[in-house]
């Protein structure tokens, strides 16, 4: 019993660190969905591009962890703006399904352009700081797990501040609530949408760099699975709701760890996508879908 409890807490630690990454990607999904009702399937690939920006910033420019993550976020924000401008804006009034297919196309474009540019070989992310291992009795956590969790929390708090307490955030909320009315009130919708893509992409890039640091390895197709999982996380928390994405990500990470740890690792992905089906059947608005009305 004691070892079972001990295993439970260790799996909880594993799950939360994995979930924080899902949460960071899910935040971008949710913001973009909130504002233009688009499920941006290229989001997982922005995360991959962010990881490569971080990789080149540390290896080529010799930057430390914090400057690299900032540079990577800025780079990915620009990529996000360009993608929206080139691929999504011309489709703004097209049927939703057309723009969804465009998103899938952008996703493939990013994946295979990167394979062309940087080769499909995985790259080894340099160790930007030496991990310290902490023992809490029988439990083990390392500094990278804490860095991931803390960075995710800081970024989420910053995002909430931008969305809730700045003029730009107010404009975003207005566009999300009713785009036409917002336009009539003199809000430059295009600029607001660009900004949302920039913010969402920057968060995904931060996730990419954190993953690179944590797992030591990045490759051009690394965004596929986390992208899908983050989508599940966003739906779980309630798509369009920022705290929901964070919560959904952590829950998903913990569920995966628990399923792997106590049932079988082969059921792990089945459990993740099973959650998606259950949520869509019984609570399509997501866990936080009722309580929180604010959308971005």
């Amino acid at each position, binding site marked *: 019993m004691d070892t079972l409890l001990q295993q439970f807490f260790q799996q909880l630690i594993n799950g939360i660190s994995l979930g924080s990454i899902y949460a960071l990607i899910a935040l971008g999904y949710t913001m973009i969905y909130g504002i233009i009702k688009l499920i941006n399937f290229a989001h997982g690939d922005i995360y991959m591009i962010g990881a490569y920006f971080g990789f080149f910033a540390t290896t080529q420019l010799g930057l430390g962890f914090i400057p690299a993550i900032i540079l990577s976020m800025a780079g990915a924000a620009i990529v996000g703006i360009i993608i929206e401008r080139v691929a999504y804006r011309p489709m703004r009034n097209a049927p939703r399904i057309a723009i969804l297919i465009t998103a899938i196309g952008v996703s493939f474009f990013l994946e295979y352009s990167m394979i062309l540019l940087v080769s499909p070989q995985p790259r080894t992310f340099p160790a930007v700081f030496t991990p310290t291992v902490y023992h809490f009795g029988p439990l083990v956590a*390392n500094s990278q797990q804490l860095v991931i969790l803390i960075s995710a929390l800081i970024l989420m708090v910053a995002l909430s501040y931008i969305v809730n307490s700045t003029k730009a955030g107010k404009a975003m909320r207005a566009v999300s609530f009713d785009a036409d009315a917002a336009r009539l009130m003199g809000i430059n919708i295009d600029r607001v949408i660009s900004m949302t893509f920039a913010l969402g992409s920057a968060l995904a890039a931060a996730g990419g760099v954190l993953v690179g640091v944590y797992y030591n390895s990045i490759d051009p197709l690394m965004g596929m699975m986390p992208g899908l999982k983050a989508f599940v996380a966003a739906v779980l928390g309630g798509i369009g709701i920022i705290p929901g994405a964070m919560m959904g990500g952590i829950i998903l990470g913990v569920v995966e760890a628990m399923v792997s740890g106590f049932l079988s690792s082969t059921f792990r992905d089945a459990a993740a996508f099973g959650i998606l089906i259950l949520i869509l059947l019984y609570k399509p608005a997501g866990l936080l879908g009722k309580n929180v009305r604010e959308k971005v």
Partner: protein
Amino acid sequence: MRKWKKIASAALAAMVFASVMAGCGGKKEEAKSDTVKIGASFELTGNVANYGKAILSGAKMAFDEANAKGGVLGKKIVVVESDNKSEPSESGNSITKLVTQDKVVAIVGPATSGCVAAGAPITEANKIPHIAPSATAPGITVDNNGKVRPFMFRACFIDPFQGQVMATFASNSLKVKNVAILLDSSSDYSKGLAQVFQETLEKAGGNIVVKEAFLSKDLDFKASLTKIKATNPEAVYVPGYYEEVSKIIKQAREIGLDVPMLGCDGWESPKLAEIAGKDALKNCYYVSAFSAQDTDPSVQAFIKAYKEKYQKEPDIFAMQGYNGGLVVIDAIKRAGSTDGTAIAKAMAETKDLPVASGKLTYDANHNPIMSALIISLDGGVPSLKEKISL
């Protein structure tokens, strides 16, 4: 005048006839000529060109050495090269050309199991002995009904053999009994190795305490590793490719799972040490067929000769190509003829043939029985730990 014309035309006709006869004679002469043609169909361009070129370099070295010693059956060996562009469909064309146009007496190549499988029916239909130096898939030399393909051979060990070797190493050298398995459930290679490993270990009195699975491209293995750690295994067997394995080893050490990690030739890459980190690789072992540190005189002699010939270090593929060439030369010598059926029969009877990696004997399924090497990764540098012969 007329008479002259007649005589002239008769003479002309006779000359033409004679020349035709001579031509015929010439052709027959060529069949009995002083050369023996051996076809080399390899991946010389395309995505696995590195493998094909390395094997070809090794095979050519074997044939050149034989020629320097007077060739086979008193004839010189001529290698006819053909590129299959790393594509199975091209591989079929390339082998057809070698067999039907160039009239080779044996085929060496290609490198990958997929390309070999495309060429195997052609050599079999034409009764041409065919040796694929590096094709590891068990189905290459045995058809779907379990019947041995009489003309198909290889010069490397098959996948399941590695599982046997590692289980033997675990129980005899590491003296461990309770072993956990973490396998890639999306790869037949990994599943096959895990099964053979388990069977061999259990036969030796060992016990698989837990069997966990992952999928290729997974990033996070801590949940499975935590579960494995709770069963207190004495070692963990991880048949997989270096991409996932490197992360598994890194994360296992992070959660304090410090027992030996055992693997297969999919681990062989400098990336493994880069991603996992040097310190994590203490007590990590995998199976390979080739190590430059092997002190066996035949291996050292091969390495020395290869370096002299090509001015670079040989890899495992070069060695397999060299061994494949030696098998062909030996079989032709023992057959005493260039008849395909006779050569194939002699090849199947290959026994204790000295090759670059020791001695080679074929089992009933045309798989070589060779010794395998256990490579240790202590300190992030591959080093030879032990040589195992089953």
